């Protein structure tokens, strides 16, 4: 396991948001965590990032504990984090945003090559290179954030709801890019997603999180019909036909 989260509990004040969650990600794998709003998905990612601290449990990355590290220290371990809501620096130019991704690195020659590669991958960023990042459209901002995360040369990228607020065709494009990156450079991905259909399509393995607990875990190949996932997602077995009609 490259990343292994074991039995973590996270509280907001006294309210538990995550209870006994364990997630493992192997090198080169795409793992999706799906679940409804308020299930604890983002909390789990923020805990891995070092923004939140678990009250209990361990998080190991490449055999080393990363619990209690600051977000910047976690980033330096090679965990690149794309939090929910895109988070481009709107007043900085597109290039400045991208370059921020390279600040941890010392391999100058490689940085320039990677920089060119990201601009090739996202030609729109090359066009708007000198413009303010705040002027980009939602889809372009998502590309910028992924490009920036790539420039940290991560060993694993965690992405919180890459499809949030994007038109469906853009979401397709985002996932296309992510799958391409896995193919081309063996990128390991941990993706939080609200749509179980997307997750089943993209992931190698899936965790369903609801009410702060893992309800289901399995290979995406075994969950193709989506039925089990839906049950775990909604938390009831009766009325499943009805639930299946929900557009998620």
């Amino acid at each position, binding site marked *: 396991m490259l990343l292994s989260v074991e039995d973590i509990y996270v509280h907001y004040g006294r309210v538990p948001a995550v209870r006994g969650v364990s997630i493992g990600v192997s090198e080169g794998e795409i793992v999706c965590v799906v679940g409804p709003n308020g299930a604890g998905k983002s909390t789990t990612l923020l805990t891995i*990032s070092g*923004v939140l601290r678990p009250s209990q449990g361990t998080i190991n990355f490449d055999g080393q504990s990363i619990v209690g590290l*600051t*977000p*910047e220290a*976690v*980033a*330096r371990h090679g965990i*690149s*984090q794309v*939090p929910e809501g895109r*988070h481009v*620096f*709107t*007043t*900085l130019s597109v290039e*400045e*945003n991208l*370059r*921020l*991704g390279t*600040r*941890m690195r010392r391999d100058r020659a490689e940085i320039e090559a990677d920089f060119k590669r990201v601009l090739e991958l996202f030609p729109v960023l090359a066009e708007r290179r000198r413009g303010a990042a705040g002027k980009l459209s939602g889809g372009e901002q998502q590309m910028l954030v992924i490009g*920036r995360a790539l420039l*940290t040369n991560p060993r694993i990228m965690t992405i919180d709801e890459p499809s949030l607020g994007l038109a469906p065709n853009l979401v397709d494009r985002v996932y296309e890019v992510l799958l391409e990156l896995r193919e081309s450079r063996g990128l390991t991905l941990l993706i939080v997603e609200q749509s179980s259909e997307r997750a089943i399509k993209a992931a190698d393995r899936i965790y369903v999180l609801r009410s702060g607990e893992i309800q289901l875990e399995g290979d995406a190949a075994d969950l193709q019909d989506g039925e089990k996932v839906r049950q775990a997602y909604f938390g009831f077995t009766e009325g499943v036909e009805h639930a299946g009609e929900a557009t998620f």
Partner: protein
Amino acid sequence: MEVVVQVIISSLSLGSFYALGALGIGLLFGVLRLINFAHGDFITVGGFSLIVPATAVVAVPLILDFHPVALIICVVGVVVVWALASYFLLFRHIQTAPPAVLMIASVALSFSIQNLIIMIYSGRPKAVGLWPELTGVIPLSDKVQVPILQLVIVAVTWILLILLTIFLRRTPIGVEMRAAAEDFRMARMLGVNATRVIALAFVISGALAGIMALMYHTQTGILSFRGGVFLMLYAFIATVIGGMGSLIGAVVGGYVVGIFSTVLIAILPEGMRGFRDAFVFGLVVVILLARPQGLVPTRAFKERV
């Protein structure tokens, strides 16, 4: 005509002063959401560092007797050390607290510094003759005379503004600082070292306060334990008018306040000049009613780590 020229130069010089103060406050607000009420006291500390610590009425020069270059370096250095110490000993330990807590801590720090100065130097104001050659005037014509110091203040301010702009635009650490001011959590997730960025903001803020201390005490010639308090107050309203967290806004706000106060002094009837502050703060109320986000709005009030 003569009056107009003099008012323009005076208001630019006063505005520059407030702009520098507002920048010192705005920088820290940007990265830490700290409204630093002790900023004025950093200016006071810079002034007192010129003389030998003693309660005697007559000030004995210390740094004051140094060669000008050494003098500038020493005063700025002293203030920077104070600013850094206040970060590492105080603000660093409460930096995740809500902005109100940080602000109150800075008020407490402000009073502590003032009382420390009273303890060491006594509460009496002391005369200090810093760079008397700068207090002269340049006659432009028979009637128009421009104080040299005012020109120096404007020039120094613009040099500092240009240097700060180059730093923030052209250096990687400057870009990090802008990123951190906009979205600190995301910046950290990209590996930006929070402590380093905040400490650097304190260094720059302290350096600005140190330079202000030099210009302010050259102008007044008097050291007082509350010397910087009013400066801080005006600089603070300049940042509020300009839009908290926007550095351009801080500069704009500084000039608005400076120009408005000077013009008021020129146009108000004699008997009302004493109430200038009422008009200045009235302007603040009007501006905030019209534009609560300030003249140059930012995303400054977003949540942060």
